[in-house]
């Protein structure tokens, strides 16, 4: 296990080094001089030179890459050109809102996807199976920005059942101000017992979370179905069936647990993808997360901020992948020798 652990960690470190290098390369390719972008169009040559000096733009590329990596490791992710704040600070403010959205979406996705997968596997090749496969295929094929627009217009605009945009009713900041612990609004509201903010957040969260949940729910339903059908052929499942357990009971009590491994790792892998997919939804619902920050950064060609968002998501991906592999290594000894 220790050998597997070190090898897998070593791989992850290599990938992170590659990710940093690639981000740096893409950043350096951006047209337009970052010094000009920082100092403004009317800067004097002296101000420009000062900006170049400040960002070390005159150093050789290797030195710049090394300095960049060293600064990243030290928590200095550069200064955003459009907020004029440290990127690391901006990210810690924006990321919790994205996490809140994607977390809620994944809860919805599991709650919908797993039962649908069980239903499809139980009535394999029947009408329920066909309709689950059809629906889950629709869910993974729908353009998320379009779904967000449709859902917003119908349920918030026309029917008025849900708020149109935002994270919670901002007038609540005066009547019941929120004490911030985790920056995840719904968690903070819950632990401080701030019910007005809690219900308002829940209400605002409903539509965007449903939209972000569509893709993971579809994938989870398909995966659960496939894993259960695969598991149904196993001897232990057939034995329980022979012992007289009903079809549904066999699936839920005996086949679902061994099938949970692949489904769990799938959820971890979908996580980083859902964050990025969430960007498009955040833009529509004006959700104060990473997506809004990324959109503003791209509009202002804010390279340090773009690089920061890219790095954060890539690190999340590497991290969740590593976690999945390690957990599977613990659960299944065969994985370690691969």
């Amino acid at each position, binding site marked *: 296990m220790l050998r597997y652990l070190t090898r897998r960690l070593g791989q992850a470190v*290599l990938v992170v080094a590659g990710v940093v290098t690639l981000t740096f390369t893409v950043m350096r390719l951006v047209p337009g001089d970052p010094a000009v972008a920082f100092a403004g169009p009317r800067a004097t040559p002296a101000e420009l030179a000062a900006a170049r000096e400040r960002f070390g733009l005159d150093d050789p590329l290797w030195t710049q890459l090394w300095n960049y990596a060293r600064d990243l490791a030290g928590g200095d992710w550069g200064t955003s050109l459009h907020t004029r704040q440290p990127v690391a600070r901006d990210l810690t403010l924006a990321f919790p809102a994205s996490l809140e959205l994607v977390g809620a979406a994944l809860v919805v996705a599991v709650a919908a996807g797993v039962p649908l997968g069980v239903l499809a596997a139980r009535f394999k090749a029947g009408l329920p199976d066909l309709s689950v496969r059809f629906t889950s295929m629709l869910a993974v094929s729908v353009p998320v920005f379009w779904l967000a627009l449709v859902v917003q217009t119908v349920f918030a605009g026309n029917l008025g059942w849900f708020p149109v945009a935002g994270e919670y009713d901002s007038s609540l900041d005066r009547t019941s101000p929120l004490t911030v612990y985790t920056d995840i609004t719904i968690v903070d509201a819950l632990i401080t017992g701030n019910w007005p903010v809690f219900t308002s957040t829940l209400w605002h969260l409903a539509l965007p979370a449903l939209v972000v949940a569509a893709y993971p729910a579809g994938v989870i339903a*398909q995966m659960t179905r496939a894993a259960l059908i695969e598991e149904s052929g196993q001897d232990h499942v057939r034995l329980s069936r022979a012992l007289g357990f009903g079809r549904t009971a066999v699936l839920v009590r005996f086949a679902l647990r061994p099938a949970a491994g692949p489904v769990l790792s799938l959820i971890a892998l979908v996580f980083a993808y859902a964050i990025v997919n969430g960007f498009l939804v955040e833009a529509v619902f004006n959700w104060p997360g990473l997506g809004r920050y*990324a959109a503003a950064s791209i509009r202002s060609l804010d390279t340090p901020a773009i690089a920061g968002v890219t790095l954060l998501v890539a690190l999340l991906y590497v991290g969740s992948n590593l976690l999945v592999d390690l957990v599977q290594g613990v659960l299944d000894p065969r994985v370690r020798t691969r």
Partner: protein
Amino acid sequence: MTASPEPAGPAEPAGPAEPAGLAGLAGPTGLGRRPARPLRLLLRRLLRTARADVLAAAGAVLLLAIVACALLAPWIAPYPEDGGTATHPTEALLPPSADHWFGTDQVGRDILSRVLFGARTSLFIAVAVLGLAAAAGVTLGVVAGYAGGWIRDVIMRVTDVFLAFPALLLSLALAVVLQPSVTTVVVALAATWWPWYARLTASVAQSVATRGYVDAARCLGVPAPLIVFRHVLPNSATPVAVQLSLDAGGVILTSAALSYLGIGVHDPTAEWGLMVQQGQTLFTTDWWVVTFPGLAILVTAFAFNVLGEGLRQALDPRGATR
């Protein structure tokens, strides 16, 4: 499913239902001038799948219709000039009617015509992206899988790095760097999609490389490049073909998202994501401007996904016995 020997004749009609996938398979297979037997076997399997899997068959038919729309857009579009630069300000934002089935947009262009022309843009992007990605990925993957050792390690670690960037995000960053255009979208998406092909081909090629006939060829003194092209590559082609079909939906969704974000295709060109973006502020008053282009993306991605899934199950040896 029964494995009764079917004559070649009845299996042939499945051909037209699946031109894209077959072309991809026939290419590498033809390279080694192998007999047509695997092809016929494939046709038979496809036909069997079509009977067993209604959803996949529907996807194939749907896809065929979309390809026809794309190819014939200039002839079947009611107002072909609206697919290009024409504008009719006096007819702006007309609701769907007998003259304009899908209504008209903010500058009076017929939306049905633009949706039909949009199929060209989307399919072109999908074909170009996957062609580039598969060419690069398969080449690197075959080399990695056949060579093994440190070559494999280096290629696979680079692949891992690229895989760590979600497609939309890396494309976004690249699209900011390069000038917005169709070429940019294609290059950016290909840059994010090739690692999947490298990884897939590497694992398949690795298992093919240990087969007896490859050993035999090596012992006979056949040079490594020839072994790779005549034996390893053709036998790695099937999973790649399936993956291409599965990925096409994802490419279409991501390219539409890039256009929606204003990166990529410019206005006179009809593109579904761009049409949604241009119409989104009008959605509450003029629903048709956003609804139809979005549905076009949904239907196209759906067709590719369903077909790819069906192909995967049909060609998966374990799936065939179920």
